[in-house]
């Protein structure tokens, strides 16, 4: 490996020796062995062709070992307004902090540390469900998350629970002293007939760089309903690689919305594994970028059984020097007949120096399926712009209205009003318009 990563070895050794006897010790060891074997992904890796993440690691990232205190005002100011009243799970430097979190643990909802879960009442479930994302995402970044799991959480939404307030994963990274490598990790089990909404946001406090390397595994059982909303509006010094690996192990409904508005280098993996017949999933994404922000969305829909339905819509608006990547994989396995799988990726480039690489990949091994994909890359529609201007709407407002409308198709999929309004507010601010 050309990139100097000795500090990762040292950090790993420190973490392991500090936590001798911890239940995650073995998994971390396996993770790090894998990482040592495969290393950081280079541009030669097809899955990382347009996202040069390795060079980020030339910086000496600090892996946080101890829990730290943080000023509560930082928690309040960085929260999505309104979301603080949800089940508020605060993660500081990648570690779940029970101290700052406010969770209604009732009979319906379990939130506890992963090591506690695996050594206690939930051992069987954790052992059954943990770590399956590794079988799909076989890269050093994922292995690195497993290597540095600490303060990871186990969440369970119990059978039939449909009234639980959304789970708000509020990530805060303190980079006032060092460059930070945070590794949030979670396992969420949604039982039969349960319903849950998960919201995530990310905030880096400090001028040094953060790299949040997150893995969230979600297991969804029969007749359950899961929404995952990921809102990214961190600073240009905030880098992120995140995987949401969602297994539909019962016949259920899943929806994800990934909104990326600001940040440094961002990679989002969204995997939906449809393991029983009749599953349904919707994936939406909006990346509205400026400056030098890079956002790479990788999606996977793996249809392993018949009669599944999936739809994905990712839309991008790129200005300045920003760059985007969309890579959408759809697998249809040999037994998975009568599949409907649709994929769309539309992009608007606002500057000559912005770019997008978009790549649909459909691998279909069944013969009775309906799959489609389409992508567009263009500029703002001149006809539409002229039409608005011919009604007296000045050019800048006309542009803003069209961009807002373009984004809205994704934003409207956010089913929590306070989160949707928050995102709309950010977009209005970017477009310098009042609500229209």
């Amino acid at each position, binding site marked *: 490996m050309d990139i100097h990563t000795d500090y990762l070895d040292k950090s790993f050794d420190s973490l392991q020796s500090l936590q001798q006897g911890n239940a995650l010790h073995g998994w971390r060891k396996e993770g790090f062995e894998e990482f040592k074997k495969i290393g950081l992904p280079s541009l030669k890796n097809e899955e990382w062709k347009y996202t040069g993440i390795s060079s980020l690691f030339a910086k000496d990232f600090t892996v946080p070992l101890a829990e730290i205190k943080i000023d509560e005002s930082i928690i309040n100011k960085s929260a999505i307004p309104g979301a603080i009243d949800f089940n508020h799970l605060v993660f500081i430097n990648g570690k779940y902090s029970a101290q700052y979190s406010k969770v209604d643990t009732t009979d319906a909802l379990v939130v506890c540390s992963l090591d506690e879960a695996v050594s206690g009442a939930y051992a069987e479930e954790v052992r059954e469900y943990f770590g399956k994302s590794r079988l799909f995402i076989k890269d050093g970044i994922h292995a690195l998350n497993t290597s540095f799991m600490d303060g990871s959480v186990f969440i369970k939404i119990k059978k039939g629970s449909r009234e639980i307030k959304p789970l708000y994963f509020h990530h805060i990274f303190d980079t006032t002293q060092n460059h930070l490598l945070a590794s949030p990790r979670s396992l969420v089990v949604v039982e039969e007939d349960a319903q849950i909404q998960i919201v995530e946001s990310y905030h880096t406090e400090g001028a040094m760089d953060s790299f949040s390397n997150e893995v969230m595994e979600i297991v969804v059982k029969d007749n359950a309903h899961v929404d995952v909303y990921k809102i990214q509006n961190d600073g240009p010094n905030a880098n992120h690689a995140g995987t949401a690996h969602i297994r539909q192990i019962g016949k259920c409904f899943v929806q994800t919305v990934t909104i990326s508005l600001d940040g440094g280098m961002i990679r989002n993996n969204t995997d939906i594994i449809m393991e029983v017949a009749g599953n349904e999933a919707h994936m939406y994404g909006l990346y509205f970028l400026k400056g030098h922000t890079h956002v790479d969305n990788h999606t996977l829909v793996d249809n392993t059984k018949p009669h599944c339905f999936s739809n994905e819509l990712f839309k991008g608006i790129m200005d300045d020097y920003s760059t985007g990547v969309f890579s959408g994989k759809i697998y249809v396995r040999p037994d998975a007949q009568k599949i409907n799988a649709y994929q769309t990726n539309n992009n608007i480039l606002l500057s000559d120096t912005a770019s997008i690489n978009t790549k649909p990949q459909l691998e279909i091994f069944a013969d009775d399926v309906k799959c489609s994909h389409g992508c567009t890359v263009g500029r703002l529609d001149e006809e539409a712009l002229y039409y608005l201007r011919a*009604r007296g709407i000045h050019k800048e407002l006309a542009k803003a209205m069209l961009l807002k409308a373009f984004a809205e198709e994704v934003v409207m999929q956010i089913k929590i009003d306070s989160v949707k309004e928050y995102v709309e507010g950010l977009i209005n601010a970017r477009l310098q318009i009042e609500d229209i």
Partner: protein
Amino acid sequence: MLSIKNIHASIEEKQILKGLSLDVKPGEVHAIMGPNGSGKSTLASVLAGREQYEVTEGQIEFNGKDLLEFSTEERAKEGLFLAFQYPVEIPGVSTTNFIKAALNEKRKYQGLEPLDAASFLKLLKEKAALLELDKSLLSRSLNEGFSGGEKKRNEIFQMAVLDPKLTILDETDSGLDIDALRIVAKGVNTLRNEDHAIIVITHYQRLLNYLQPDFVHVLVDGRIVKSGGKELALELEAKGYDFIKEELKETVTA
């Protein structure tokens, strides 16, 4: 109100208008007819200020101001309204929000406060009724999935709300069935008054039956070659444009 003098205009180096002149006074209705490719829609685009069209010669005065100095949006705010031949579908922008933005831009330009919500809705309701426009269309995305007739009615509806001084109807009759044509014509006639001039660009006589223009002009090869009263439209309908072309040849050879 509108004085077009010897206008020459081109798109992508192709000369389309070749010395067109036209005077329109407040309250008048002028019809401009002509064969395909004669420059009718170019005239509409030049008046509206579409950027791809380049005016190479001539002047256009609108209410004593140099129209060519204004941007597309400024012309609209000065009181010029172009009803599009092909209204653009704009997904995600509701008709109501679009008209609200347009109206408020115009009011701001005139130094007026934005219309309050209640007055705005009242205005919309009133004008929608005039055009027999289904209210559900107002909350839908602008023109998206509208039928041809709905799109054209929506244009006239916008005209009614924005209350322009000069309206250009660019082939508003194309693609309309008889009923839609009647509704559109009724809408236009209701909004006809001594301050509001209208230029009707059309291929056919049928809209003119309803609108009863004061003047009819024939545009051939970028110039107005013949002008007359409304009876000229009937003559054109009966004989086609060839008779004008024949007349022109005779003039040239004579």
